[in-house]
């Protein structure tokens, strides 16, 4: 793995990355989304997608009761059918981590917490690190940090890098997901650069979005990030995961992402350890489509709990 020792070195490395042709990247994503996934492949893809969900609630109005409901659902998405896999994690604000941890107990479902002054990231590094440490000590297995988009866009990429390094250190054993907030980075070139900065800084995952801005995960953005993790794995020898978040609500959407993963980085990444969906309403659609595949008919939306 390249050891970054100075901002100049980091800048040179980032400047050496190939550009992204926006038209080409969007055309490639659109082409991949015409893949026809049917029958047993569809069922397998649905179960795979369920196991990759970070079941998320990030509202000011969140309550312990809501988190309890979410955790229960995370462990047994469909109580009538125990063959449905549990989701990968529940994702909450730091103050609800302890509660989620106690509900989930020894289950394999992880607790993920957003931190570092989520979603804007507009706080001092000290405050951000405190945020992270609190989440980790409350029992978070995974930390979803946000990068400082202001610093990135004004060219202070050394600052972005240093923050990732510091947060990674504060995480201890917890896995670090770095949210790029691609909707604010705007260009694919920026997405590729920010991906590399996050990975060089020690990210275990790079994540598209907070879900709190207008533009969230898109297929071409995911494609560019997957290309980045593929190239990073080849040059640095470390596999980094990708999490797409925000606006993914249907099984069809989820399967399109899986196809892009499959045909960009390959099967190695088709595991919850390396690919995640940050979503809430997606899970119910996955459950509904799963039943549709089995029964041949749709059931009512109210067959599944709302959260």
């Amino acid at each position, binding site marked *: 793995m390249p050891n970054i020792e100075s901002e100049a070195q980091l800048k040179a490395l980032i400047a050496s990355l*190939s*550009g*992204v*042709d926006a*038209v*080409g*990247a969007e*055309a*490639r994503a659109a082409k991949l989304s*015409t*893949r*026809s*996934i*049917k*029958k*047993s*492949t*569809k069922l*397998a*893809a649905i179960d*795979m997608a369920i196991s990759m969900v970070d079941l998320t609630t990030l509202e000011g109005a969140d309550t312990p009761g809501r988190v309890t409901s979410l955790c229960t659902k995370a462990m047994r998405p469909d109580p009538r059918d125990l063959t449905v896999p549990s989701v990968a994690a529940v994702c909450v604000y730091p103050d609800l981590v302890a509660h989620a941890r106690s509900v989930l107990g020894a289950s394999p479902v992880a607790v993920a917490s957003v931190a570092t002054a989520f979603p804007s990231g507009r706080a001092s590094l000290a405050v951000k690190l405190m945020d992270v440490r609190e989440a980790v000590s409350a029992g978070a297995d995974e930390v979803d940090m946000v990068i400082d988009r202001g610093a990135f866009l004004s060219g202070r990429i050394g600052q972005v890098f240093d923050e990732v390094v510091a947060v990674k250190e504060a995480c201890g054993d917890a896995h670090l997901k770095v949210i790029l907030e691609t909707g604010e980075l705007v260009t694919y070139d920026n997405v590729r650069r920010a991906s590399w900065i996050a990975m060089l800084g020690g990210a275990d995952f790079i994540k598209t979005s907070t879900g709190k801005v207008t533009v969230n995960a898109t297929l071409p953005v995911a494609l*560019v990030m997957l*290309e980045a993790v593929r190239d990073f794995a080849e040059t640095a020898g470390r596999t980094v995961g990708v999490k797409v978040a925000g606006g993914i609500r249907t099984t069809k959407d989820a399967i399109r992402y*899986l*196809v892009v993963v*499959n*045909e960009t*980085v*390959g*099967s*190695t990444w*088709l595991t919850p350890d390396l690919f995640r969906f940050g979503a809430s309403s997606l899970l119910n659609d996955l459950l509904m489509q799963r039943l549709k595949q089995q029964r041949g008919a749709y059931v009512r939306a109210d067959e599944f709990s709302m959260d």
Partner: protein
Amino acid sequence: MSDRQLANSQLGSLEYDPAPESAAIAKLKPSYGLFIDGKFSEAEGGAQFATVNPANEEQLSMVAQADAVDVDRAVSSARRAYDKVWSKTTGAQRSKYLFRIARLIQERSRELAVVETLDNGKPIRESRDVDIPLAAAHFFYYAGWADKLDHAGFGVNPKPLGVAGQIIPWNFPLLMAAWKLAPALAAGNTCVLKPAETTPLSALVLAEIVEQAELPPGVVNIITGDGSTGAALVDHNDVDKIAFTGSTEVGRMIQQRTAASHKHLTLELGGKGANIVFDDAPIDEMIEGIIDGIFFNQGHVCCAGSRLLVQESVADEVLRRLVRRVEQLRVGDPLDKNTDVGAINSAAQLLRIRELTDFGVSEGATRYTSSCELPQKGYWFAPTVFADVSQSHRIAREEIFGPVLSVLTFRTPEEAVAKANNTNYGLACGVWSEKGSRTLWVAERLRAGVIWANTYNRFDPTSPFGGMRESGFGREGGRHGLEAYLNV
């Protein structure tokens, strides 16, 4: 000999179940006649030939073999329709018919896509997403021109030529029919169209559409047959214009036979397109562009980017990524919606591809062949890349017209241009760079009719297409495409 089979890559292991489109959608008939004077009729001599599905060698249908008598019937019918009806219609009336054809192609697009894939061997994804929509788009586009010819830049009230004989190839059967018919009809000509021997079916469905659209009888005649039918059409004295798309060899013959006659001629012939990759190219999109450039339609594309000229400093990296991507292409049943590369159109074409690739190996190029499994029956050729190719190799000079890419290197922009232009052809080139000024510098110096920047094989009815030197002359598409069918 250095034939390296690639190790199975990790890519693509979410195994996709077969997702075949149903062949029954094609609603093929056991046999088709000639479409002359608004109705289907048997060939005068009663001769027929079979058209087969190249993916499994099964017979799809029998079609009529038109001889010189049939050609004469078709041309006479077109002449009558021109004199009595079509030359007297207004542009707005012609436009109405063209819009009808365009809409009917859209309405029957699924059927047409399946017919095209069955008869040609191309993946259903391409016939569904490219061939058929583009064919409809061409009719829509020229429908818009029919009543605006005064404003096309060819003077006031430009006149049509008369009867156009149009001979099209097997690589994009319906699309090439649309490229030929739409501008000819918009300009006020009547047509005798001869589809290729191995792919007559979509043109015959188009004949049904012409009937459905209630075009006056004889305005469009579609006659099937082999080379002798085409020759009879070229030689017919009452034809005013010959438009041909196909091989340079046949094009040369046609030009000789029409020389010193009243016949207007446009030719769209072969090519050996160069995709030029500079070290600052957007690498992932460039790899996709190279793949599209050579493996789109199994490389059966006259403007295919069959030569890759890559800057030496990035050659290894580009080749490594390219080979990895080639390995990922899904080759197989053309009707499967997830197939990327389909069947070679005919046994004869397969033979030619094999012959030339064998030459590549014996001339010392390094061959990479996809390890994909090929179906037992049918005509198949695994996607292939040749590295270490030099300018003098046959695979760098001759049109292979198959899924075979030759990779060469260069060091300076001057060398790239010199190598790209060092060919008898001049149809299309691609330039890949993030530096606009260099792209323009190179594009100015390339001798080719079409130059794509950071993309390849993009077609649009508004954009003229055609070649220079041995790639032919005349333009199809856009305002320029009208010129080929107007007396200007």
